[in-house]
């Protein structure tokens, strides 16, 4: 039951809106962006299986969206739904911080 879709053009493929709308902004096919997408997909499958949708936006293809969506660093993950909008930058390697950033997990991390 995989719902993640990678869309190059920035237009979502399916009209049905999932509960979690995530957008990943990248600039070309770099190692960092590939890592970010991989990390994101793994994390979503673990925690949000069946409830999410990922849209990948390549800013090299759609440079206008960089200013429109206030993107500065890449990769940037934006949680568009549920509100409020959240931004997470980096290759999403630090899973705990991503979970906190997305409000999937509360701010207090378990003691190591």
């Amino acid at each position, binding site marked *: 039951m995989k719902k993640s879709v990678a869309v190059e053009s920035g237009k979502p493929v399916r009209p049905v809106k999932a509960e979690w709308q995530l957008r990943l902004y990248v600039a070309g096919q770099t190692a960092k962006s590939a890592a970010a997408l991989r990390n994101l997909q793994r994390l979503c499958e673990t925690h949000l299986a069946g409830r999410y949708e990922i849209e990948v936006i390549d*800013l090299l293809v759609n440079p206008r969206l960089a200013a429109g969506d206030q*993107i*500065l660093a890449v990769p940037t993950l934006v949680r568009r739904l549920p509100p409020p909008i959240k931004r997470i930058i980096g290759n999403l390697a630090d899973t705990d911080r991503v979970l906190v950033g997305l409000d999937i997990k509360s701010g207090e991390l378990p003691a190591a």
Partner: protein
Amino acid sequence: MTAKRDPGPASIAKAATGIEGLDEITGGGLPRGRPTLIVGGPGCGKTMLAAEFIVQGAVRHGEPGVFMMFEENAEELAANVRSLGFDLDKLVRQKKVALDYVRIERSEIEETGEYDLDGLFIRLAHAIETVNARRVVLDTVEALFSGLSDHAVLRAELRRLFRWLKDRGMTAVITGERGANSLSRYGLEEYVADCVIMLDHRVNEQISTRRLRVVKYRGSAHGTNEYPFLIGTNGLSVLPITSLRLDHPAPAERVATGIPGLDRMLAGKGIYRDSSMLVSGSPGTGKSSVGASVANAACARGERVMLFAYEESAAQLARNMRSIGIDLERWVKMGRLHIHASRPTLQGLEQHLVFMYQAVRDFEPRVVVVDPISNLSLDRDDSGLKPTLMRLIDFLKQSHVTAVFTSLIGDTGAALAESQIGVSSLMDTWLLLSNLEANGERTRALQVIKSRGMPHSNQVREFVFTDQGIELIDVFAAEGKVLTGRLRLGAQGVPVADRGALAAVAAPAKRKARR
């Protein structure tokens, strides 16, 4: 001043900022195709300078620009720029300027591993393409430091960004907050090494003055002083004056001072056009009247005159001068005379100068009267007065303006002349007015201390107000003594009761002088 004059044939290409004075200091503008760093504390005019650089580029130099802001949003910037008389929105519609507001809110950003600032590069590249930009402003890129925690990445990316701008041939202005130990708080000067300009906003004796200094300009000569600047209604103006050379022309034409007796003392022809005259004297010796006479005579010749009054309001001055037969109001109504009356403490010394500079540029007078210069500085020992005056005099000479400065001095013999030494050397003609007190009567006297390039009388003249202006009466010597006032009249056989009668005798003297 040790600035090298000749930039040489290998001088680097420059992009004019269009900012009054700044292009003169830098010998043509900022380094073309390279970044320039502008540092300064909060509120010292960095954004304004950067904005004018973009607007002037788009409007006057055919170079579209991108203004990327990190602190203000586009509306705020447009409002600020509008206060300088530029319509930013219109330039954006005409695709001459592109604005991009980069909003960074640390609390909204979670950092989770490696990243770079390609998003910023893409935005910038997109904006540059949109308007085909030649100029870029980043105001102020240091905001990134508070927005992103990984400063190592940030520094590497900034280095890459400045390199990237250079590779694209962008003439860029990067602003930065002034730092405590380095020029900018985050040491941006390490990356932007071609040109660094520092802005400063100081308050001295409760009067604030903005100053600008070119700290560094690789590959180019530049003025090294601190220059005052003003953010006025027409944008920024920097006062570069203190000309490096004395190369203003020296016309041989002479102009009358409006005081026939004084003209007679100056070889019968008055002062040189475009020269400067200092009128110093203790209180009540008639300095303002001399200034007004010169103004009146110039207006009568059909010339435009600008009078800066720092002691009296325009109406007060006009009323007082009417009492000695000088009708200034008439010239004001005709538009020949502009009187700018203000309290000297309204602005700093240099800001006065900038203001005068602008006013003179706008009105283009042939004669300027400053009454008095001594009031421009609260502090008697103000070391700023002389360079400021030098700048003013240079500027006026280059603008072909004949200038009269009055100066208030104390009433004590030798100290009196000494107190003017600072400025008198800048002047071509120096008149000294004094009070003579003898035999229970005070009379006024005038002498020409110097007048460059012309023979002039060395005698002291008695200085009398009449209802037809100022009269100078030749020395009256009797029994080996110079007599003035009633003593003179008595010796001349005129019975007098009061001082008003002095004029009655002066008047025929005038008629005779006019033939």
